């Protein structure tokens, strides 16, 4: 119990020392394999020497990252890249930022780092490398565009749709094909009906885990969390309050948030798809990476995907993912530019897909590049789910919605904004506050944070 704040300073120093001598791995010309070659990806760049990529893993990563990086090191054999071998972490980034050349950052948070002045605008990089941003999904590019300047090259592109346990739905007397997810009353009725037939969780709106999918419910209701330019919080609006009231009503059907969480905790191992194999959970919206979980643990279980819809019945999904950015303090920006453009190129992604195909023993559901051309070619050339029709159909639902994605605009106080609305959602779900009051308070806090961070 004697661990106290006075240990933080020496702890930080120790972390610095460990970071300096610790888990970083270098990747140089010892690459193997033969992948497709890019043509002219270096453009006018003079790429050489060494760079440090923070938030990027090689040794400790899967074949997707390794394939893309192998491609880069083949294209630029004289470049040495050092990796942090970690995901992006705000605290670690504070110490790593001063020596990093490249950072992989969640797109939603990029605005905070732009406001801090640590990221380099990429217009020069984009022009000299010869890449076209048209290659990337528009939502991913717009999310990294701040005041007209692009600050990141989108890496991955993850969207969300409904996954449904068809056995449970049939048992509850609901046809999953015709279940209308644009009708919120139908969602609430399905939740109750599924629980009546023994599902621990009928419908999980996925708003309990740090808010998670809440922006989708807001958007489905015609609202927005924040203005397009990220400067105005829109949390205190009727559309947001109505969305919050609705998801709370779903949670209240369980007798409160804690009961819901306890029930959900008992649905089984999420990463073994036990909610489907054990028929413990009816439906929930989730990103497409979860199809890989299903493919790996229960590829022939009975389930289906449905597009998430707004209340008018239009497909609607939320785009998320990381972007590669260049640190303004980098003294090797040409090489950093070569790295972020080459590793997100179509050829790099194809190389990764090829490696995954070789490594995969069971069905594989592809990758999720923000590069549109790469996505189309990977699913045309490398992904074959013909022996697993349910997985194949589900994957197709996700692919069909890639162009219907919105994004939560980044802001100068991205993390404070996120914490403000998560706090409001959680307090309402916990029954500690009414939606309007909680959102008004969150809106004030968020706007204050944005104003002070952006000034």
């Amino acid at each position, binding site marked *: *119990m*004697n*661990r*106290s*704040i*006075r240990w933080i*300073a*020496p702890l930080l120093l120790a972390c610095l020392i460990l970071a300096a001598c610790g888990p970083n791995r270098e990747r140089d010309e010892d690459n193997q394999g033969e992948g497709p070659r890019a043509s002219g990806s270096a453009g006018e760049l003079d790429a050489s020497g060494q760079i440090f990529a923070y938030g990027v893993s090689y040794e400790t990563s899967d074949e997707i990252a390794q394939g893309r990086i192998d491609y880069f090191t083949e294209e630029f054999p004289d470049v040495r890249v050092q990796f942090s071998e970690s*995901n992006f*972490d*705000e*605290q670690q*980034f*504070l110490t790593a*930022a001063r020596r990093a050349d490249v950072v992989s950052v969640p797109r939603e948070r990029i605005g*905070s*780092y732009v406001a*801090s*002045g*640590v990221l380099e605008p990429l217009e020069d990089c984009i022009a000299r490398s010869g890449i076209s941003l048209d290659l990337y999904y528009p939502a991913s590019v717009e999310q990294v565009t701040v005041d007209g300047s692009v600050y990141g090259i989108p890496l991955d592109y993850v969207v969300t749709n409904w996954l449904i346990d068809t056995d449970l739905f049939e048992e509850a007397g609901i046809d999953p094909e015709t279940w209308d997810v644009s009708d919120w009353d139908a969602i609430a009725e399905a939740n109750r009906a599924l629980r009546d037939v023994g599902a621990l969780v009928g419908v999980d709106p996925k708003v*309990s*885990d*740090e*808010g998670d999918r809440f922006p989708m419910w807001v958007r489905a209701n015609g609202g927005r969390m924040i203005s397009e330019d990220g400067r105005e919080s829109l949390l205190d609006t009727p559309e947001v309050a109505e969305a919050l009231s609705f998801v709370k009503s779903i949670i209240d059907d369980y007798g409160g*948030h*804690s*009961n819901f*969480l*306890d029930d959900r*905790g*008992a649905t089984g191992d999420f990463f073994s798809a036990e909610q489907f194999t054990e028929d413990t959970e009816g439906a929930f919206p989730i990103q497409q990476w979860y199809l890989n979980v299903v493919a790996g643990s229960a590829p022939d279980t009975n389930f289906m995907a449905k597009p998430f819809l707004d209340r008018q019945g239009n497909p609607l999904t939320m785009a998320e993912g990381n972007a590669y950015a260049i640190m303004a303090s980098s003294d090797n920006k040409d090489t950093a530019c070569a790295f972020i453009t080459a590793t997100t190129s179509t050829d790099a992604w194809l190389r990764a897909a090829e490696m995954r195909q070789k490594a995969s023993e069971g069905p594989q559901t592809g990758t999720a590049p923000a590069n549109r051309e790469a996505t189309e070619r990977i699913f045309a050339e490398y992904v074959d789910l013909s022996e697993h029709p349910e997985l194949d159909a589900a994957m197709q639902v996700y692919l069909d919605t890639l162009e219907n994605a919105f994004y939560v605009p980044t802001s100068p*106080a991205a*993390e*404070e904004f996120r*914490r403000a609305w*998560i*706090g409001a*959602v*959680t*307090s309402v*779900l*916990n029954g*500690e506050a009414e939606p309007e009051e909680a959102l008004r*308070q969150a809106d004030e*806090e968020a706007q204050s*944070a944005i104003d*002070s*961070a952006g000034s």
Partner: protein
Amino acid sequence: MSSDTAAGRADKVSRWSAAERRTLLWALLFLSPWIVGFVIFTAGPMLWSLWLSFTDYNPLSGQGDFIGLDNYARMLEDRRVGLSLWNTLYFSVLYVPLSVTLGLGLAMLLNGVGGRFAGSFRTAFYLPNVTPAVAVGTLFLLILNNPNGLLNQALAALRLPTPSWLNDPDWIKNGIVLMMLWSIGGTVVILFAALRNVPAELYEAARVDGAGPIQRLLNVTLPMISGAIFFVLVINTVASLQLFSEVYTMFFGQRTGASAAGESSALFYVVYLFRNAFEFLRMGYASALGWLLFVIVVLITFFQFRLSKRFVYYEGE
């Protein structure tokens, strides 16, 4: 300080013999590792954070402007300061008396254990204290889980209510108190050492005078170890006000196993301070929060010392 007094002290130092001056130098030399460490790791950062508390310093850009008392004024409007202070004080009020009482009970039990197993028991009680805080937090995510956690399974077996320790805002802080009580080995060891120092003849005299076990506890044991009790009271109070690692691991870390239900109930003061410094990049504001906590700790400790004059017995005073 008057010039007479200063001159007197200077005169006194100058009257030191060469041997005394040499002793002083040696003493300073031996103390120097601590002095250097104190200046670099405690006094220096404290002064730096005091300066930062008057700025809007951004740790990422390394830039900040002087903004006077704005950070302190902001605290008055920030409802999370009040919320986190409330959570922290709630925890302290529950934890500190329980840790001292339970620690004393365990120390008395240990004191009664003799033979070759005595050492093993002492080690067992202290073992949780050498467990890393992150491991403790992770462990208690499993123990406090509802309905599959060890604690609730035991409670269910006894047909007792099974609270949702990790998800119910009314129970989250109580669960954290339980978790921290698991690590009271330090308190137990200190009180156990104090108990061993109570002269046996005092108990014999009390017994001869007809005192029962309760009277001996109240009139002999507690007065004789009141210094140690006061010490653990102060230390545990300060530590409880600075609770961070376990709670952050459980409810706020990147790979937390708990839901966001603890977003408000488990928002302890130092967690909020940490978030401002390292997540919101508001190091100036976080420094101001740190100084508010410092003032609160000093005030509470001062109050405890004032009270101690009435309740604490020091041999030789």
